[in-house]
């Protein structure tokens, strides 16, 4: 039967096909029309399957990371040259940022690790694992040299620094808590399979890959604009990886120091750090005198278990609203509302679910299981954040005495801007004379 001339039987076929599709069958393949028998010697074209970026290039990225971390540490600790650090930073911006499109970055790799630890069906690529672990290990040895010259997000913020101003101390302390929250939420979401928040809200990746939705571009542009007067805002007040780097750096075996030899307290480096990461040898004034301060500290320490318990409870309660960020949970919610007649229209998601033929009870039990995970995870997150908050309060109420100017081991990004300000070790400068002049 010639296909071109048929109308009635074609109409029947079409009607049947329409009925088939309306019957709710999933889009599984139905061979409705038979395979043609070509008599003219026609051969079917090949379907092209272009492959993704080769594994060799991905492995090369890890080698480059290793080299960059080594060079950054050498430039910051041994060579002590800001120019070398800056040039390496530009290379990292170009390679890890624009060439590699900023993905998978060390910051995002936290999520891949969280995801693989809690989900047996995800095999983390070793390259992502390397990006997670290598900067941490280097930081344990040399301090935050990764931040100075390797991280592309740091690099893009560093190049726009124009007239950096100090953030008022109370604000800086409050904002410094945000990365802990961001880290906790990202780990929770990644582990629960609800998505990668760090990637979703990465402000700078849109520039690196020349594509992002409008809101993210706006966020990135705003941060860069802010970065002209507040140096490296993402690094200091948002970056979740910075939490881990901060911890590693505080415990690092070696660390960048402002002076190549000993500090003579000449105070020349005092205003040299755009990130306010220099410890001054002046004690912070405590209001009210020593006894009052001791009592305040005592109360904070005593109340810490209460705060942590409260944090855990709040986190546990927040588990349910947080779980709505998971696709299965929001789908289950939508289905329940529709079944109860509380929604007038179905959504794409509920339509697609209904064609799968999966019973609603299965979906609901999956969603309940995920919500349980979120409650437990939320409790852990709440307790974690409460501990961080308490530690912060305790630290703010402990008086520390420093004898010299040094880099804050937790927050110093090893950029080397302060090196040029230190007269010690400069040519023609006598250390003993400096000491006499500085007292």
């Amino acid at each position, binding site marked *: 039967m010639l296909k071109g001339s048929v109308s009635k039987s074609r109409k029947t076929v079409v009607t049947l096909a329409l009925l088939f599709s309306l019957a709710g069958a999933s*889009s599984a393949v*139905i061979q409705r029309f038979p395979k043609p028998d070509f008599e003219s010697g026609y051969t079917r074209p090949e379907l092209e399957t272009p492959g993704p*970026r080769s594994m060799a290039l991905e492995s090369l990225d890890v080698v480059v990371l290793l080299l960059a971390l080594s060079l950054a540490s050498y430039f910051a600790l041994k060579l002590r040259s800001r120019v070398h650090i800056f040039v390496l930073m530009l290379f990292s911006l170009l390679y890890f940022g624009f060439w590699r499109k900023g993905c998978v970055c060390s910051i995002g790799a936290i999520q891949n690790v969280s995801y693989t630890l809690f989900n047996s069906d995800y095999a983390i690529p070793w390259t992502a694992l390397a990006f997670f672990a290598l900067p941490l290990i280097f930081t344990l040895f040399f301090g935050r040299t990764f931040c100075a010259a390797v991280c592309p997000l740091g690099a893009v913020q560093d190049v726009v620094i124009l007239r950096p101003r100090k953030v008022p101390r109370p604000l800086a302390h409050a904002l410094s808590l945000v990365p802990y929250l961001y880290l906790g939420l990202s780990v929770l979401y990644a582990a629960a399979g609800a998505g990668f928040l760090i990637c979703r809200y990465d402000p700078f990746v849109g520039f690196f890959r020349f594509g992002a939705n409008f809101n993210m571009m706006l966020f990135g542009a705003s941060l860069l604009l802010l970065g002209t007067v507040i140096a490296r805002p993402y690094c200091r007040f948002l970056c979740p990886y910075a939490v881990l780097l901060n911890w590693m750096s505080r*415990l690092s075996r070696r660390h960048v120091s402002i002076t190549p030899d000993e500090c003579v307290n000449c105070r020349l480096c005092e205003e040299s750090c755009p990130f306010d990461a220099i410890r001054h040898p002046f004690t912070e004034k405590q209001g009210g005198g020593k006894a009052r301060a001791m009592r305040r500290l005592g109360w904070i320490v005593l109340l810490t278990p209460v705060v942590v318990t409260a944090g855990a409870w709040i986190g546990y309660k927040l588990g349910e609203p947080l779980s709505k960020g998971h696709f299965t949970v929001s789908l289950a919610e939508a289905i329940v509302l529709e079944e109860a007649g509380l929604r007038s229209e179905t959504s794409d998601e509920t339509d697609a679910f209904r064609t799968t033929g999966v019973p609603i009870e299965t979906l609901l039990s999956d969603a309940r299981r995920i919500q349980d995970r979120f409650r437990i995870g939320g409790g852990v997150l709440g307790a974690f954040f409460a501990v961080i908050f308490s530690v912060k309060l305790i630290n703010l109420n402990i008086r520390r005495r420093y004898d010299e100017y040094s880099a804050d081991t937790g927050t110093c990004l090893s950029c080397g801007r302060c090196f040029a300000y230190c007269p010690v070790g400069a040519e023609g400068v006598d250390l003993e004379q400096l000491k006499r002049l500085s007292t």
Partner: protein
Amino acid sequence: MSSSRRDFLKSGLNTAAGLAVGAVTGLALSRSGASDLVWQLDPDVCAQCEKCATNCVLPESAVKCVHSYSMCGYCDLCSGYLEPGAKSRDTGAENQLCPTGAIKRAYVEDPYFEYTIDEKLCIGCGKCVKGCSAFGNGSLYLQVRHDRCLNCNECAIARSCPSQAYRRVPAATPYILRGEEGQRYVEQI
């Protein structure tokens, strides 16, 4: 605390931190795969919602329609090419489902017509996929094209897909194909 005691404590904590990083890394390594993972959509789960065209972070979506020639019926009245109620079965733009005219129709022999996709024009909207899977053989379907895809750590399309058709597949076999092409693809691994 004397400075030597502090240094000792710091050194101890440094080692502990190193061990912690090593432990986490080792645990993750035990679940690690040698291959990189890339995104692909499962055509049997796809709901043809048209979001693939608009949700990719790239200005031109990395998702394109592909054609399984082994499954195609080569019909004159192609439900993936022609609009329902098309005035005539020819290459007139007013008859085509495709909003960008990315499907090219060529006469092979009576009564067969060959349909090929011009990827430069295809936007990955899936209108042809909907028509083909509803009334045809299902030989037209969407796939992530890996010469275009950036392989973001979180795929913006995957996140918005109403049927959750996206999953991570090994980079060595980055496609989920239908028909004979699919069978040959799986065999060649």
